[in-house]
């Protein structure tokens, strides 16, 4: 039975997406794009989680939901993180009039 998709394919896609996110954090200067890249990395990790959970289901032979529930919690935490992060970006923009991360080099106000 060679129907279906190999686990390694999912893991490779996950690795590619994670690398793109890390690259985005490294090369982009706009804080919003950096933040979006972090979301991309979270998604890549979630994809690997669900793929591994599916693979574990295959080995045990019965449904296992722990991986999916973990992804659910990761999504909830990501929502909270985005709310606070975007509020921080708005607050930084108010004081500095920029969201270029190269300009944010001083520690005091």
């Amino acid at each position, binding site marked *: *039975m060679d*129907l*279906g*998709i*190999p*686990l*390694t*394919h*999912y893991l*490779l*896609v996950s*690795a*590619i*997406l*994670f*690398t*793109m996110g*890390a*690259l*985005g954090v*490294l*090369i*982009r*200067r706009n804080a*919003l*794009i950096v933040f*979006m*890249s972090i*979301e*991309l990395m979270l*998604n890549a990790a*979630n*994809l690997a989680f*669900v*793929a591994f959970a*599916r*693979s574990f289901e295959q080995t045990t032979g019965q*449904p296992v*939901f*722990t991986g*999916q*529930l973990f*992804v*659910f*919690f990761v*999504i*909830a*935490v*990501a929502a*909270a*993180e*985005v*709310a*606070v992060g975007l*509020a921080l*970006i*708005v*607050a930084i923009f108010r004081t500095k009039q920029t969201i*270029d991360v*190269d300009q944010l080099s001083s520690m005091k106000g």
Partner: protein
Amino acid sequence: MDFTLILFYVVAGVAAATAVGLLFSRNAVYAALFLVLNFACVAVFYLLLGAPFIAMAQITVYAGAIMVLFLFVIMLLGAEKLPRGGILPWQRPLAIGAAAILLAEAGYLLVQRVQSAAVLPDPGSFENSVSSLQQMAYLLFTDYLLPFEVTSILLLVAMVGAIVLTRQAKGAQR
């Protein structure tokens, strides 16, 4: 070569292309829309993996709520046009090299450490997924009740924190 494998390759290509588009787009609104498409591709992967609930949560929470918030902030700040070039010219090639090394390492480890023969079958029928959804909800409200409640408190704290952070200071209004 069956249908799901072709679908997988097409969606994987779109996901990778949208990630590249996010990296190199000059307009923050386009970057956000690329990211929405990327989230939709990942939701298709979840459906292929037999996780319909996670797929729908991905669409509603990520592609819906989070990206609308992003677009809202982009419009609010008027920061959609991104300037070219950085202060450190050597940073970009160095970052691309480091990312290539990261990709090679992650790909090698992930592919080498799992049994390469593992093939994930296509998800079952609709009735099957509904019953599995019931089991998942049962697990969420029994074994994982404490993390669930902690998550609700976390969301409340994040909401209050966002309001406090973006609130105008009393003296700054006049």
